[in-house]
């Protein structure tokens, strides 16, 4: 865990700065346009997914290729609340049913949509549903001692199964189109600059909070135990530990963070559809972490932001080549930056800077 505290502070400071500059009059030279705030909010939501992936991959050695499933489930839970918030403002003006249900000629709300007109309930579900799925999946997988590439394949299967399920109209989650056309959250207009600015800062605070929470957990005895389980799982059994339980705890915590990211994502991006379950999304999240630096937490945030910034720029210029660029990035990182951006010799740089500042001969810190 390198520079987690500075990363948390920097994230919040940058988000506050962006939000403030966005609220400047449009004529001002320093004005930040609305779309940039929206993008930043999206990137920070992804950063939460990155932290979640790093937590299990970097610290518990579980290469998850299905974590976007937890992110998307959190997103759907929040999306259901936002759908209910539309009320009579939908195309069909039906106060009791979301538009897509009217379109499918359903006459009553499915039971699992009840309660989602309350923000608090939806937020709880955005955590509880991914958490419960992770608990079930993890319990079954870890107690059967499934690990390594087999577990990775199972996580891909999990997210793919959910993708197929959510595509079905019968599921009651809007099928192919997903949930969208949201109007407001807790009465605040989703399209207003102020709401977006506040959401950006809130997301940054959640990123910072997740960083600090995971750092606190990992720097204590639990972190040592997790390293032990990662590197020599069977040995921990002979010390009396149950590695399956240890992994389950971190796996569920990771899913909760991913779910929170998904919930914040939907509020700021304004749409959630089955595409979020696409296996490629989960693989992308692993690439963010690899690029930023596996097992560093702050690298997960950095990687999520940088790769997605690259994606935004690249898909604007050469959309059809993005996947090749992403693949090349992953290969190059693996070959030349095995410890990611955070693994670069930063302390030499800071040592150099310190040396220059003190006027002494720049000595290279070890």
């Amino acid at each position, binding site marked *: 865990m390198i520079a987690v505290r500075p990363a948390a502070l920097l994230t919040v400071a940058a988000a506050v700065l962006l939000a403030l500059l966005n609220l400047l009059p449009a004529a001002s030279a320093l004005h930040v346009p609305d779309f940039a705030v929206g993008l930043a909010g999206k990137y920070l939501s992804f950063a939460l997914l990155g932290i979640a992936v790093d937590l299990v991959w970097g610290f518990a050695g579980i290469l998850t290729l299905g974590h976007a499933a937890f992110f998307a489930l959190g997103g759907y839970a929040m999306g259901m609340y936002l759908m209910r918030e539309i009320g009579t403002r939908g195309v069909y003006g039906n106060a009791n049913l979301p538009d897509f249900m009217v379109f499918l000629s359903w006459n009553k709300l499915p039971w699992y949509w009840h309660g989602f007109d309350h923000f608090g309930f939806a937020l709880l579900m955005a955590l509880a549903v991914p958490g419960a799925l992770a608990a079930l999946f993890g319990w079954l997988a870890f107690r059967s001692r499934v690990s390594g590439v087999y577990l990775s394949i199972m996580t891909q299967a999990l997210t793919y199964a959910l993708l197929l399920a959510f595509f079905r109209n019968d599921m009651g989650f809007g099928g192919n189109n997903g949930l969208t056309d949201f109007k407001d959250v807790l009465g605040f207009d989703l399209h207003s600059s102020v709401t977006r600015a506040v959401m950006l800062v809130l997301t940054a605070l959640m990123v910072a909070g997740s960083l600090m929470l995971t750092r606190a*957990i990992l720097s*204590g*005895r*639990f972190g*040592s*135990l997790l*390293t*032990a389980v990662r*590197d*020599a799982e*069977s*040995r*921990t*059994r*002979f*010390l*009396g*530990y*149950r590695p399956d*339980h*240890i992994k*389950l*705890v971190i796996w569920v915590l990771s899913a909760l963070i991913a779910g929170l990211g998904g919930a914040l994502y939907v509020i700021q991006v304004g749409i959630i559809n089955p595409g979020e379950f696409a296996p490629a999304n989960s693989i992308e999240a692993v690439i963010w972490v690899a690029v930023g630096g596996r097992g560093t937490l702050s690298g997960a945030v950095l990687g999520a932001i940088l790769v997605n910034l690259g994606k935004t720029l690249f898909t604007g210029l050469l959309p059809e080549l993005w996947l090749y660029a992403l693949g090349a990035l992953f290969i190059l990182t693996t070959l030349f930056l095995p410890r990611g951006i955070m693994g670069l010799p930063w302390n030499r740089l800071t040592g150099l800077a310190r040396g220059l500042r003190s006027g002494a001969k720049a000595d290279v810190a070890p």
Partner: protein
Amino acid sequence: MSTQNLLYLDAVSVSFDGFRALNALSLLLAPGEMRAIIGPNGAGKTTMMDVITGKTRPDTGTVEFRGEHDLTKLDEPTIARLGIGRKFQKPTVFEQLSVRDNLLLSLKGKRRPFAVLAARETAEEAARIAGILATTRLADHATRQAGALSHGQKQWLEIGMLLGQDPELLLVDEPVAGMTDAETAQTADLLREINRTRSVVVVEHDMDFVRALDVRVTVLHEGSVLAEGNLDDVSNNPRVIEVYLGR
């Protein structure tokens, strides 16, 4: 039946794909006893330890601990928590962690995830670690990464981790493999020291070491006990000589 025995193995058999690794093996260990197990490769020494620690389930036979726990029905963590510690043939310490953290994780007590999450090092734990560091002569290396230790030091750290577990019975697989003569002698001293308060089963090839331990010896061959007694008796046993030297 076996209340006077700490460990009681009766007619234990294990087969892997038709190969009989243990063949009606029976072994008794009294409380406080130290026993050396010798035998040629493939005699079943490691399989026996696997059976006692719950790693391998025997096909048939009885394995009891303290006359009350049927070890064939329990898994590794449960058996470890009952008070059976194991040192592996190849030293397995947690290489990324410091020597101190290795010992901290081994200390008897907090094992459940949330107990570990909430754990703060107590003064008692610190004292226990300091004691083990002194016993295993690793005090000067406490903050080093375990992976950076020499082979002999890793063996000692693993013995230290066994002490941290505070087990009633220690199973020690080839503790002096790869050690210098001086380290071997120190290890024999250490095991005798440990044996003052705990029972020990040592598997070893090094005859000088076994002689230095000066304890009852069990010779295994093809999965069962070939001979038992003090080292001189068993090494003069014609069947043992035949097995070791071949004919």
